[in-house]
């Protein structure tokens, strides 16, 4: 067998791999295939870590990050902390094709997306709401806060900064591993 074409996807997200392969079979470019495959995962909400209705932040909101890169031209489009728009990879492609920028983030990225015709909709679902309310019931554990008061390992915020309790100690990047909270 010839080794090409080839689609490789993280995790067993087979529907995305299939969609990308179909895009290639329909004479789409490699870039088209990446966009189609990732968009399939956004629609499918692959394992809850892709797409709307997953990984709510401290205020219960789902926000999306995505990028797309053309290895021939080194063109890139990326969005981060995207609100109210489900098709993040589509917006990343729009950044590549309709701006001379590379990376748009946050509320303004959502406004750009709307101006490019992407549908504005609520990314919260019953599932993300239940994840959020369960977290609140567990005194907001786990969280990403440190050197704040009240003690972030025991309670929710709002938090205020405190002098670093570990001053003088050698800083370490090592932290608790949480398999259920990743990118």
């Amino acid at each position, binding site marked *: 067998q010839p080794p*090409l074409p080839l689609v490789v*996807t*993280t995790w067993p997200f087979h529907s995305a791999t299939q969609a990308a392969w179909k895009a290639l079979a329909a004479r789409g470019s490699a870039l088209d295939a990446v966009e189609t*495959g990732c968009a399939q995962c956004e629609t499918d909400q692959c394992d809850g870590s892709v797409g*709307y209705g997953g990984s709510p932040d401290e205020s219960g909101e789902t926000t999306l990050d995505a990028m797309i*890169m053309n*290895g021939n031209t080194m063109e890139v489009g990326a969005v981060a902390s995207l609100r109210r728009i489900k098709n993040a990879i589509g917006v990343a492609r729009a950044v590549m094709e309709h701006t001379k920028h590379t990376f748009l983030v946050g509320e303004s990225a959502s406004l750009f997306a709307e101006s490019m015709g992407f549908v504005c909709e609520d990314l919260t679902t019953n599932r993300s709401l239940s994840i959020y309310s369960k977290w609140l019931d567990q005194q907001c554990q786990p969280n*990403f806060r440190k050197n704040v008061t009240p003690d972030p390992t025991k309670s929710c915020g709002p938090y205020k900064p405190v002098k670093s309790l570990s001053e003088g100690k050698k800083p370490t*990047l090592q932290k608790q591993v949480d398999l259920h909270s990743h990118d």
Partner: protein
Amino acid sequence: TIGMIVVDGNGNVATGTSTNGASHKIPGRVGDSPMIGAGSYADSSVGGAAATGDGDTMMRFLPSYQAVENMRMGADPTMACQKAIARIQKHVPIFFGAIICANKTGSYGAACSKAPGFTQFHYSIYKPGLSQPLEEMVDCL
């Protein structure tokens, strides 16, 4: 995160990622996925790579860019991925992360970092001769 590498029949390489990030993140927090060279990287003269895992840690090492540069220096895709993961492990011995790599001629591989509850990384591929996607797996370093 979904990370994806596509190499078309002529060796043109593209990569991409999409994710809703870490749960319970501080609003405004951005992970590694949209960061060029962290979430993914593509260079059709070499190949492509894409990453998934603890974005706060991985983005500091630009593992996808590193993996493509490893391939540029002659590593095969599996070795390129492994070296990118090992580089992070030097600083953060235990972290949750995985990376997929492919070169422009269609070879591919993956690597991951062993963490409590995570000792194997499963990923999905499609290549000529298959009639549907195939699940492959690597043991973590």
